[in-house]
């Protein structure tokens, strides 16, 4: 027995009709045919049942070992995530940020013009130190990347050496200022 064929136009639009995505005129044409064509009706029923079966497919839970392993790997392997574009641009940007943070922190001592009129509050100092720590994180990582790109440790040592006073300030800040 040969199965009667459903016209392709209708067959291709069954799923769109079920998703209510046919235009007004297309939907009207489709529904007029559906009312009189048992073959189209059967295919619509099949598509409906398929949709129900697809929705019954289970979305799965991750095993508990997944996050445990990920945290272990990332915790052991990386001190800081990789920066988005590891170039000298980051070094420059980081150095500028560090310099800015230093100026905010040390303003009275390093800027010309004598004593400032306003002293920073303790909160401002703490914020400046946090910004400095963040900037140093970037600069340090950029230095490491640059050293790796140059194929040795010299670059990193130089960058680290340059930053050592700032780092000391970050840890001993309140006493030094």
């Amino acid at each position, binding site marked *: 027995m040969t199965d009667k064929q459903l016209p392709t136009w209708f067959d291709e639009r069954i799923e769109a009709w079920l998703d209510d995505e046919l235009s007004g005129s297309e939907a009207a044409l489709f529904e007029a045919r559906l009312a009189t064509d048992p073959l189209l009706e059967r295919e619509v029923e099949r598509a409906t049942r398929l949709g129900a079966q*697809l929705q019954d497919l289970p979305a799965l839970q991750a095993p508990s070992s997944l996050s445990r392993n990920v945290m272990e790997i990332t915790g052991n392997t990386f001190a800081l995530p990789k920066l988005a574009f590891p170039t000298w641009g980051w070094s420059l940007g980081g150095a500028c940020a560090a310099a800015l943070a230093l100026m905010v922190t040390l303003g009275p001592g390093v800027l010309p013009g004598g004593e400032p009129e306003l002293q920073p509050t303790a909160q401002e100092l703490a914020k400046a130190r946090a910004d400095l720590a963040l900037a140093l994180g970037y600069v340090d990582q950029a230095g490491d990347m640059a050293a790796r790109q140059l194929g040795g440790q010299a670059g990193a040592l130089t960058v680290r050496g340059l930053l050592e006073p700032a780092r000391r300030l970050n840890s001993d800040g309140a006493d030094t200022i």
Partner: protein
Amino acid sequence: MTTGCNLSFAGPYDGVMKRRFRRLVKEHQGQLFSLAYHLLGNSAEAEDVAQDVLVKLWQHLAGLEAERVKPWLLRVTRNACLDLLRRRRYSQAYVAETVGGEPLAVTETPLDRLSSSDLGQRLAQAIRELDEPFRSLVVLRDVEELNYQEIGQTLDLSDSQVKVYLHRARRKLRKRLGSELDD
């Protein structure tokens, strides 16, 4: 000399990123594992893929904007699964060529076992037999319940392409299952 300020070097940055990362792992790990599982049909491989992807997320976290994280994760997961499937096909073909005989077919996956009915099992098999991007589309839409925009971002398709391909994928499944879908 120590002070009242207890900041460690790069502490704030490190802490913020770690908190963000932990939150993202918690939020997305289930979906990544589920997507990999449905594409690969193997629990251990799916866990390996999801783990690798989450480690990559940590490496790229600083450069990812919040709204890009989910499509990025799904895209990287799907690509890793497709790579794995390709390697699996090559190795099966290699074994068949060198040892002789037919390549081993994956006859049953955990998804089959999870599907309680015969029709559910046949459907799982039919989904595995779909070509890309139809297989990913069905899994992302019908199993993971992503919206069209999220699917488009993941598969690099426009909304209208997603709709058209998804209808085509379901039609392929309907044709493949045929009378099995009759009551």
